[in-house]
């Protein structure tokens, strides 16, 4: 169980047609084990975000095989994919995305509403704990649109963790953070992998950040060039 594979990509290819065919991902294959802390680096436009959208099950328009927690995601319905995404995957976007109509803590609780495993009070205290870990518990009841970029990003990270997913994917989670807060995020992720045995997959431009992770996957022009 300790070293079981959580995510496996086999020969993933992705092309855009507008109007000429551009191959963005070419035969990408790799495996992530439980508790692994991996980062994806690469030039801008090398296909990092595209890969992450595919791995997060949001983009289903690709060829190749994708298994999450041993389940082949091919032929799964939109509803089933949504349920998998909700329960097993946490996602932090390249540009922080929150619901402006809600407070920070409601935003964190949002995936929990869908999962509906614990009571609302439990969910709220859990959300509060995550916000506290990220140092923004005092902002819990502030409306999302009133937060700064970095604060939003940390709320988004808390949201990705709320359902205890197997794997958390982040697209430049520290892009808006100063080095001190980037360190906090790094350490939270590290703790998640080490004590909670979660798998982290982080796309980053921050090479120092990447160096500290256990594994670096480098993409160039849609191919893995270094592991």
């Amino acid at each position, binding site marked *: 169980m300790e070293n079981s594979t959580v995510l496996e990509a086999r020969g993933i290819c992705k092309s855009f047609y507008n109007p000429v065919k551009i191959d963005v991902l070419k035969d990408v294959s790799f495996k992530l084990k439980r508790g692994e802390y991996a980062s994806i680096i690469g030039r801008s436009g090398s296909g990092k975000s595209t890969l992450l*959208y595919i791995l997060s099950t949001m983009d289903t328009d690709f060829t190749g095989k994708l298994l999450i927690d041993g389940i082949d995601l091919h032929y799964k319905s939109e*509803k089933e994919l*949504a349920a998998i995404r*909700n329960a097993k995957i946490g996602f932090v976007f*390249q540009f922080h*995305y929150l*619901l402006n*109509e809600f407070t920070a803590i409601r935003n964190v609780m949002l995936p929990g*509403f869908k999962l509906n495993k614990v009571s609302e009070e439990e969910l709220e205290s859990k959300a509060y704990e995550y916000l506290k870990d990220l140092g923004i518990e005092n902002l819990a009841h502030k409306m999302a649109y009133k937060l700064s970029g970095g604060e939003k990003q940390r709320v988004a990270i808390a949201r990705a963790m709320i359902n205890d997913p197997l794997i958390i994917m982040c697209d430049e989670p520290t892009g808006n953070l100063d080095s001190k807060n980037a360190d906090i995020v790094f350490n939270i992720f590290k703790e998640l992998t080490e004590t909670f045995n979660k798998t982290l997959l982080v796309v980053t431009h921050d090479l120092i950040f990447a160096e500290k992770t256990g594994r670096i996957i480098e993409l160039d022009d849609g191919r893995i060039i270094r592991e």
Partner: protein
Amino acid sequence: MKQKHLIEIAVALMLARWKQTLVATIGVTFSIALFISLLGFMEGLNQLLDGLVLNRTPHIRLFNDIQPSKIQPIDLSEQYQNYHNFISSVKPVNTRKEIYNAQQIIHKLKNDKRVFGVAPKITAQVFYNLGNIDLNGIINGVDAEKEAKLFAFSDYVIKGNYRELETISNSIILGQGAADVMNAKIGDIITVTTTEGEQFSLKVIGFFQSGMAEIDKIQSFASLTTTQKLLGEDSNYISDIQIKLKDLNKAPALAIEFEDFFKINAEDIQTANAQFETGSGVRSIISYAVGITLLIVSGFGIYNILNMLIYEKMDTIAILKATGYAGNDVKKIFISISLSIGVAGALAGVFFGILLSAIIDAIPFSSPSIPNVTTYPIDYGIQYYLIAIIFAMVTTFLAGWMPAKKASKVDPVLIIRGK
């Protein structure tokens, strides 16, 4: 997934765009309120106008028509049996207006389950004497009590007590028009001359107004006995039997049946007043068409606002989907927005509909032809409320369905990348 949380999201989205939501709700409110009051008013008016005629007209009238005999002497002659005989200017002989066995017929009809009530009537041709001038008149001999019960007689007696017809002998209720010409007041004694040339004195105990000037100038009412005396007939003399049925629509069929059974002429109300049914029907159709158009237009309002909301809240939809909400959940959110607008609009619409109806109901309206009506008529029938609510629910659901479906199909990757 708890409904509660979907609704929480729906409410948050509505509050974020509360002005537009309010406008859409007002649209629904407006259309339902108008639908209810328009139809209530129209139907009230229909009932009033129909009532004008239908309430005081017998559903079936039995009488003896004065007609020449269908069999003429030449038809009986053996010599001309197989000929076509043409006789011009045939005159009726010896035909009486009296209905034979009137009491038996009335008795038989009273025991008929389809009949609501029966009232006998006598019409007498007279002249009202006004000094040297004689005015044409018709005195209707009626059973005042039955006339009131079956044909709303009391509504049209605008002065005096109709019951006195039975208690005061030789009394008359004059048509308002005739009374005006004769300058008669209650308590006055007027004289009339019958077609036989006899003069009678009658005491005026009330006035009658039907609203149709031609009728009010000529017609008057007296008791059966008084009229029989006037005509010099015995107390069995009846010239008309008026029948009110339980179901108005059966009148034509029953008229034919009675005609055969009693060997008498029978006329049903539909034949006598064909134009009224058509008028009411057309008015109803027009008001339903206008009302339903209003409801549909309010549906378009909801459709527009939901479309706009979805366009503005693409990010929200994308986040919901990215964090694991299925297309179906998103659809539910937007349909509940649409239905909330519909329900809130319907409730407010019913409230304002009743209010508007009450206002119309209080506007003074008087017409000489409808003496007992003082304000505009409104029908508070529950059916208009039900139709309006059901129709509003269906339109809001459909108006919400299409945008909601669109929202459920939003591709989160496209939105997230678009930033």
